[in-house]
């Protein structure tokens, strides 16, 4: 799984193995197939018949490696064991995420949605070129030939596709290759397609960044201040010098910390512990999470700064004033850490030609690529990024500042660059790094008429913007409104009369960061617990009540209603076994629709046990149904686990949590069976990595409310006296 991106190495490699057929897509969108110019292809086929999909998305577990190789194999006529994969090098011109803009990156549950057409086109173009070459070789009509399981056949001939690579490599790429009709699909939509990365992840041979041992490498760990934005005054490494394997310590050029270098990880850990650093805390963060919460709650009581949908606030007020009943709830969502299983790490080495090679599992490699060029004062092409497997991310491996990669680069910059430097974080470094799902509050007042119908919905949101103050602000903040603060609320498919959404930004005491499902992490909980509360107040079944607001012919409404009905049906909604209670929630995010029924036993006082979760998902055409099921299973766990009992808090600017014992991950015993149903669809594929997360905690809270008559506005649930069995 290596990909040498230099032209010379590529051509040398090509010469060694014979001719190579490459097919890629140029920045202008045109297919191209000339190996001399298309150095960054999407598909590479060698004359021994080896086919490699060049995967432009990194793999943090969500399955793009499986999905993108499936697309190529499908169009090319291969079985899954006939195709290998490599991760693409960093090249945002060729490998841009077409849904995220001019950057190469994985996020927003867009991998399949943006790659679906491209990788099929590349595979189809390669198929047509190989068939054309075979037709010329055999002197038959190309229309009589096909490729199945890697064999070109037809008109009485048959040969492995590798035999036609040399001839095909001399052809121009077709401008519009014929894509297979869904009726011809053998791999797309097939539940039997397995992950190509399963075996190596189960036998210990998969290589993650943490596993790199480059020859002569040093390990570095960074001594950081307890309070964010404190800076180094001086350090004393006499204690560290007693540690066998310690090499040296050096203040990072930006004074943000002290890099401790050692021969191996354990020595680096011990030496860092033994280091005595004097910090300047005059500009450091001193706020506590109580102050963050107080600021947010105060903002909810004031007039919002932004009228999100430009609706008439006065009309909503009049509607609420005239309502037969007003139900109200205030919500608070704490900071949350991503805590991917693999602590962050990044390895940097100098290359023979004066460049930099970074080994990393970057979620958006374009960001560290630019940062490296700046730090080392090198042109972009002198920076190479070798993408490796990520042991999870959930958003954490993409920060606008490229935080951990910059840290590794700055540490490397303090050395003579003769030895590779591997930056390693501990779990404590990870939980205390200051990058969190921002804290948010909502205050919602819903007016109902005598019949329980909604007549007004006043919804205030206050919290810490993710995008403001970052390079993403220019693209994602409009009229002052950070869409990621309100997504899932102000753009709800529910047709709610008299709705008004207001937003107020509050100050950031920590760095805010997208966290699996971004704004939907809080908006879905609010929308779905309020809809539930309104339904109960109206005395109407929560499913029926929601469907009233999803009436009509709108695609959004129909698809959302579709998953709601399907989840209810599959869960046996309303027919829970004795002692069990159900809660439901439905939400659209990342262009996918997900409904979940959480079935619990027990109650808030005696202990709640999550017996089972039934889920319906509409994510368009299901390319890899089993990957989709796995993603929904996992994202439900991610949503439920954190909202059960996790939060990051600060005291005087210092993070209170240290490690998993006080940021307790979801455990196997916390959650019962998860049953996922996929809505059959011919629509283009949409996201699956995140959309399972938003409704999960809301469905759980609704089940708890149904069992115990308690509504929980402040998360995590355990902070409200809810015990989990």
């Amino acid at each position, binding site marked *: 799984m290596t990909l040498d991106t230099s032209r010379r190495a590529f051509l040398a490699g090509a010469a060694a193995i014979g001719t190579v057929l490459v097919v890629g897509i140029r920045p202008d969108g045109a297919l191209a197939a000339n190996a001399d110019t298309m150095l960054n292809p999407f598909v590479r086929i060698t004359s021994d018949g080896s086919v490699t999909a060049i995967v432009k998305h990194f793999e943090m*577990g969500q399955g793009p490696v499986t999905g993108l190789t499936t697309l190529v194999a499908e169009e090319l006529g291969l079985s899954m064991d006939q195709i290998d994969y490599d991760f693409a090098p960093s090249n945002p011109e060729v490998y841009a995420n077409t849904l995220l803009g001019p950057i190469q990156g994985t996020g927003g549950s867009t991998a399949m949605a943006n790659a679906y057409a491209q990788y099929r086109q590349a595979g189809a173009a390669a198929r047509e070129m190989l068939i054309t070459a075979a037709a010329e070789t055999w002197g038959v009509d190309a229309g009589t030939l096909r490729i199945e399981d890697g064999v070109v056949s037809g008109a009485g001939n048959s040969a492995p596709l590798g035999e036609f690579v040399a001839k095909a490599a001399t052809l121009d790429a077709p401008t519009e290759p014929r894509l297979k009709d869904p009726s011809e699909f053998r791999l797309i939509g097939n539940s039997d397609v*397995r992950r190509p990365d399963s075996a190596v992840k189960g036998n*210990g041979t998969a290589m993650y960044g943490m*596993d790199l041992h480059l020859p002569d490498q040093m390990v570095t760990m960074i001594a950081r201040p307890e309070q964010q934005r404190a800076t180094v005054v001086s350090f004393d490494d006499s204690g560290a010098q007693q540690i066998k394997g310690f090499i040296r310590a050096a203040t990072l050029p930006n004074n943000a910390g002290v890099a401790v270098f050692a021969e191996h990880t354990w020595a680096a850990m011990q030496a860092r512990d033994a280091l005595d650093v004097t910090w300047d805390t005059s500009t450091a963060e001193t706020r506590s999470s109580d102050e963050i919460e107080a600021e947010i709650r105060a903002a909810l009581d004031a007039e919002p700064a932004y009228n999100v949908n430009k609706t008439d606030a006065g009309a909503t007020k009049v509607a609420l004033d005239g309502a037969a009943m007003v139900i109200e709830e205030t919500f608070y969502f704490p900071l949350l850490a991503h805590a991917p299983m693999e602590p962050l790490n990044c390895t940097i080495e100098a290359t023979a030609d004066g460049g930099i090679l970074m080994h990393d599992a970057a979620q958006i490699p374009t960001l560290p690529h630019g940062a490296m060029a700046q730090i080392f004062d090198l042109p972009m092409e002198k920076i190479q990024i070798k993408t490796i*497997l990520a042991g999870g991310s959930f958003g954490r491996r993409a920060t606008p500042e490229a935080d951990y990669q910059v840290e590794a680069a700055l540490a490397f910059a303090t050395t003579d660059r003769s030895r590779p430097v591997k930056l390693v974080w501990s779990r404590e470094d990870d939980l205390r790094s200051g990058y969190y799902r921002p804290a948010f509050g909502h205050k919602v007042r819903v007016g109902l008429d005598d019949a329980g119908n909604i007549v007004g919905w006043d919804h205030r949101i206050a919290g810490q913007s993710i995008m403001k103050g970052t390079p993403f602000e220019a693209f994602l903040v409009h009229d002052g409104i950070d869409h990621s603060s309100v997504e899932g609320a102000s753009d709800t498919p529910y047709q709610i009369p008299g709705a008004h959404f207001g937003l107020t930004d509050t100050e950031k005491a920590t760095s805010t960061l997208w966290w699996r499902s971004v704004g939907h992490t809080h908006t879905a909980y609010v929308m779905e617990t309020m809809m539930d509360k309104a339904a109960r107040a109206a005395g109407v079944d929560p499913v029926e009540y929601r469907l009233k607001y999803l009436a009509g012919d709108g695609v959004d409404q129909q698809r959302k209603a579709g998953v709601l009905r399907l989840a209810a049906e599959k869960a046996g909604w309303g027919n829970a076994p004795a002692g069990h209670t159900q809660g439901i929630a439905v939400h659209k995010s990342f262009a996918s629709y997900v409904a979940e029924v959480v079935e619990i036993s027990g109650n808030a006082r005696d202990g709640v046990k999550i017996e089972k979760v039934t889920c319906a998902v509409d994510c368009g055409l299901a390319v890899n149904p089993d990957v989709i099921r796995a993603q929904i299973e*996992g994202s439900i766990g991610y949503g439920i686990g954190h909202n059960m009992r996790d939060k990051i808090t600060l005291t005087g600017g210092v993070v209170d949590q240290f490690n998993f*014992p006080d940021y307790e991950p979801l455990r196997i015993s916390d959650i019962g069976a998860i049953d996922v149903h996929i809505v059959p669809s011919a629509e283009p594929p949409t996201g699956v990595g995140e959309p399972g997360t938003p409704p999960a905690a809301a469905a759980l809270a609704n089940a708890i409310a149904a069992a115990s008559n308690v509504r929980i506005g402040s998360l995590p649930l355990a902070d409200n006296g809810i015990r989990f069995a």
Partner: protein
Amino acid sequence: MAISLKLNGKDQTIKAEPGTPLLWVIRDELKMTGTKFGCGVASCGACTVHLNGQPIRSCQTYIEDIEGAEVTTIEAMEDTRIGAAVQQAWVELDVVQCGYCQSGQIMSAVGLLSENPKPTAQEIDDYMWGNACRCATYQRIRAGIRRAADILEG
């Protein structure tokens, strides 16, 4: 200090400072990286190996305490009857997502099936509680253990 132990069936002498966790000897000294670092405080299970046949957390197992012990890591699982069955089940069911915790999950699952060839769902939950998976692949871990039990039963 130098200690002798049997690692994956082979006699091995290890030189390390007293107080060095077995995890870092395996990973950094012997460069066997299938055993993972996740928390360093024995609360996630990513570093699980077998010590004299029992799953233990190698991040909290110190080198001076294991003189003469038999240590088995994920790298040797395919050569064991139960390990191979668990790995087969993991691939059949595509248990993994990011995969980083799965060496530890498999080491614990093998420990469970060694003691209890036909565990109930409750017994699986009780035994596997200490192995965290941030991707929350728990449902498939349960199914994988049951599938491995079936494979072993023949």
